[in-house]
C-alpha cells in the first residue's frame, strides 16, 4: 500500500495537471514572482519538493497564502511547467481539511472598509476557504 505522502503527491499531480519532471531548475518562476520576498518556499522550490515527494514542509508553510495567482510564473516558464498550479494544488490539500480554512467569516469585519470591492472578498474566499 502507498504511504500517505505518495497519495498526497499523486493528488497534487492530478489536480494541477503539471509534469514536474519538465522543470530544468532555471529559477525564472521565482525570479519573476511578485511574492518572492514574502515567501519561505519559492515557486521553483514548490515544483522541486513535489517532485522529490518532500511535501510535508510545504503543507505547513505560510508561503501557500502568498501566491497571488498572477500567473507570471506560468507565462514566463521556458518549459511550460506552470508552478502556480502546483502551489494551488498544495494549498487545496491543506484547506480542504476540516477546520483548515485560511479565511473565515469572523475575519471579515476587521478587514472591510467602505471601498473594498466585492471582487476582493469573493476572490480571497475562493483561494483560501473550502
Amino acid at each position: 500500500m502507498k504511504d500517505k505522502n505518495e497519495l498526497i503527491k499523486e493528488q497534487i499531480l492530478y489536480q494541477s495537471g503539471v509534469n514536474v519532471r519538465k522543470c530544468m531548475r532555471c529559477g525564472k518562476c521565482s525570479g519573476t514572482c511578485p511574492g518572492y520576498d514574502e515567501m519561505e518556499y519559492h515557486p521553483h522550490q514548490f515544483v522541486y519538493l513535489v517532485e522529490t515527494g518532500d511535501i510535508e514542509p510545504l503543507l505547513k508553510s505560510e508561503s501557500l497564502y502568498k501566491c497571488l495567482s498572477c500567473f507570471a510564473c506560468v507565462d514566463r516558464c521556458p518549459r511550460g511547467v506552470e508552478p502556480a498550479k502546483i502551489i494551488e494544488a498544495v494549498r487545496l490539500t491543506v484547506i480542504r481539511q476540516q477546520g483548515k480554512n485560511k479565511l473565515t467569516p469572523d475575519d471579515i469585519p476587521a478587514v472591510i472598509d467602505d471601498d473594498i470591492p466585492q471582487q476582493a472578498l469573493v476572490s480571497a474566499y475562493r483561494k483560501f476557504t473550502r
Partner: protein
Amino acid sequence: MKFIYYPGCTLKNKAKNFDIDARNCAKILGFELIEVDDFQCCGGVFTTSADEIATKLSAVRALKAAKKAGLPLVTVCSACHNVIKQTDHAMKNDPVFADRVNGYINDGDDYHGETKVYHYLEVLRDITGFDKVKEKVKYPLDMNVGAYYGCLMLRPGAVMETDDPENPQIMEQLIKTLGGRPVDYGMKNECCGGYVTVTDPGFAQKRSKAVYESAKKAGAEIIVTACPLCRYNLTKNGADIPVLYFTQLMAKALIGEKNER
C-alpha cells in the same frame, strides 16, 4: 451589433461608474449590451484544480445564456473576463471536465465552447474599430495616461489572447484614440497584490506602491485600469494620482465631465 453583457458582482456595487460609463459609451458607439438575466458572480478568480466543477458553473451559465441568444458575450471587468475565458477554454479543450459540467447542468443543451467571448476593449479594437471611436471624441484628453493591465486581463496568454502579455498595447491604443498620451512603464503588467489585500494588507501595499511609483516615474498623470481590485489596491495604498476605469476615461472624451453621467 448586439452582445450579451456580463457586468459581474462588483460593477453592480462598488464599481457602478465602471458599468454606467461602459453602457453610455456603448450607446454612443452604436453597439447594444443586453445584460445576462439573473447572472451569478464569477467567483473573481479561476481555480486551476482539475477536480473543481462547482466554482466554474456560474461562468458556464453565462456562456450558455449567450449561446442560447446566438450572440457573443462581452465583459468589462478583468476578473470576470479571466474566469469566463479560462472556463470556456476548459469546456472546449478538456473533454473530461466538459462532460462532468454538462452532466451536472443536464439541461439538454451541452456546452462545448460555442460562445465567442470578448473583452469590451477587444470590441472597441476588433469590431467597432478605434478609428470609429475617434470620430466620436468630443473632448480630446490632454494628459499623460499610464495604462495598467495587471495580471488577469493578460494571463495565461495562450488562453486570454487579448494582447501580447509582455507588451500589451490595447489600452495605449484607446488612450491615443481619445487624444491622450500613453506612457510606457515597467510594472504595467505586474500584479497589484490582488486578493491578499484581505489577508495580508502590508504585502498588497508593497506591490501596489511598486506599480504606481513606476507609472509616476514614467510621467503618468493618471492611471487607467479594467479591474476594480487593481483600482482599490492602488488607491487605498497611496497612489497620489487618480486611478480610473478605462470606461470613465472614455466617457470623459466622448461625453464630457458633466453631461448625462
